[in-house]
């Protein structure tokens, strides 16, 4: 027999349930991910975190490719100025529909995000804070993230924040952890080989997902 507290864990607030049912998703083009998580939710903030080489940028490029392919305008606020247009183009992104904002500081990135989100009309707004020092990102007031989340609510904009550590977790509706890449090498001798690709592993931490999502990425650079 279930206790009241145990039962309560399985119940959700009516408004939350309505939100889940009504939420629209942007498919990422990664079959394993879309099958497990339906894609990236529109009208809310999704947090993606993981160490240096964990597949976040690969995931982002695929997301931008799907977004621009469908004719939507997408924006990338690049706090570390590390975006590689060539790789994104190989992933299928229509760069003419992508606004790339090259920032140097967290303050620039947040202000740029604020301008873009409030101007409206974007399919995807991604903020990449990965290369910023963690201590700087941790200093960003949580109120900013709540402000962004409220701004995209009831809009078709999917907002994605990429970072090295999970700092937006309280404000994000969805949090996904990217685990370190497992590179694969091709070639018989260790002196004569190439980087063939890498396996990417994602765990949905909020709301809690059941199984990790695994997919492979191919090295083409």
């Amino acid at each position, binding site marked *: 027999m279930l206790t009241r507290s145990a039962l309560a864990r399985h119940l959700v607030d009516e408004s939350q349930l309505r939100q889940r049912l009504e939420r629209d998703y942007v498919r990422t083009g990664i079959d394993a991910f879309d099958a497990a998580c339906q894609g990236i939710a529109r009208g809310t903030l999704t947090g993606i975190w993981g160490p240096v080489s964990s597949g976040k940028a690969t995931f982002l490029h695929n997301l931008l490719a799907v977004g621009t392919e469908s004719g939507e305008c997408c924006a990338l606020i690049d706090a570390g100025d590390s975006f590689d247009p060539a790789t994104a183009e190989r992933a299928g992104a229509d760069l003419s529909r992508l606004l790339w904002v090259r920032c140097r500081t967290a303050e620039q990135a947040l202000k740029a995000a604020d301008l873009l989100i409030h101007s409206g009309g*974007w399919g995807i707004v991604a903020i990449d804070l990965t290369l910023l020092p963690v201590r700087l990102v941790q200093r960003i007031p949580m109120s900013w993230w709540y402000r962004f989340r409220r701004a995209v609510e009831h809009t078709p904009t999917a907002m994605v924040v990429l970072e090295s550590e999970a700092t937006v977790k309280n404000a994000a509706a969805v949090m996904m952890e990217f685990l370190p890449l497992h590179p694969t090498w091709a070639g018989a001798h260790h002196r004569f080989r190439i980087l063939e690709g890498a396996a990417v592993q994602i765990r949905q931490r909020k709301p809690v997902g059941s199984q990790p999502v695994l997919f492979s990425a*191919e090295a083409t650079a």
Partner: protein
Amino acid sequence: MESGVDYAVVDLRGLGRLIGTPRDIAMRMSAAMQTAGMDGSVAVASNPHAALIAARGNRGTTVIAAGDEARALAGLPLTLLGPEEELAATLESWGIRTFGDLSRLPAVGLAERLGSEGVRLHSLARGMAAGPLHKVEYALVFEASMELDHGVESLESLAFLLGRLTNQVCGELVRNGLAAVSLTLRLALDDRTEHVRTIRLPFASVDTAMFLKLLQLDLAAHPPMAEITGIYLRADPAEQRRLQTGLFIPAAPESEKLELTLARLNALVGEGNAGSPEVLNTHRPDAFTLKRFVARTDAPVRKRTAATTPPLAIRIYRPPIPARIYLREQVPVSVQAQGIRGDVVSFAGPWRTSGDWWKADPWMRDEWDLALDSGALYRVFREPHDRWFVGGNYD
């Protein structure tokens, strides 16, 4: 109506009911000219060319009845037709000096001897029309200016004045059914120089508030270096934009709002740091350019290449991070750079890549992919003179 420096031709059809006979109309026009202080002649005929010649050849008011053109013009000198010099000399040598002399000549013989120009002059001499009227289009200029009695230093004060001029220019555009595709602002400065700024849009607009805001943002980023003594604003006109929306067209940022947002972004991150990237057609690493971002909703959508496996992305470090790479038997074994330290557990490389050797800035590097014991996967490269850099990391 067709007009020139010294004449105007007006279509009088339909005025009969309002004013009366052709003579009544001619008298009314003559009186209006006198009232306006203009000295000239008025002629009415069945076609504009006969009327124009009659007005030029006769003083006062002339009315030519339909069918009577040849007789009414017969006594006028041929110089009124403005023939070419050679043709005029030929006609003079033949003793042809008046309209009547020319009109009595056979048209066929005239065509054989003088060609199509002779035929045209023959028609005019007989009072016949020589073609339709051509509407003269004057170039429309949309500009406004203001000389200031006292120099203006602050941009806030300037904004008020700019608003007036922008309203004036946009109002004129609207009245002509046009819009502005660019605005050029010239500020005359106290030091006798000029400060010129141009706002260009990817679409034509008459949104005064948007133009004013764009000008303000631009002047804030590029302020004049002296007091402002004069303001000149000019708009380049274009057809007004027509938008066709649809149910299945993806939503896009509003054009006017987007322009303001892009202007604010440029002010925030610096000019040239926000736009659409375009990969350049070269093997040089990290070669791209940033173009102006335009929200396209009607462009055809590119189909993605059917890659079943997504490509592994690389993050580029700009600028590359100088590194110290320790080698053993010419193979990297450890990496030290700012924020990066570790032992190499797997590697691939080197690959030599180079290019643009014919240019002033050739490039050459040996690239390696290194997996460190920290789990990070880096792209490092070595340039000539054994300079190592970490170029980016796979992510």
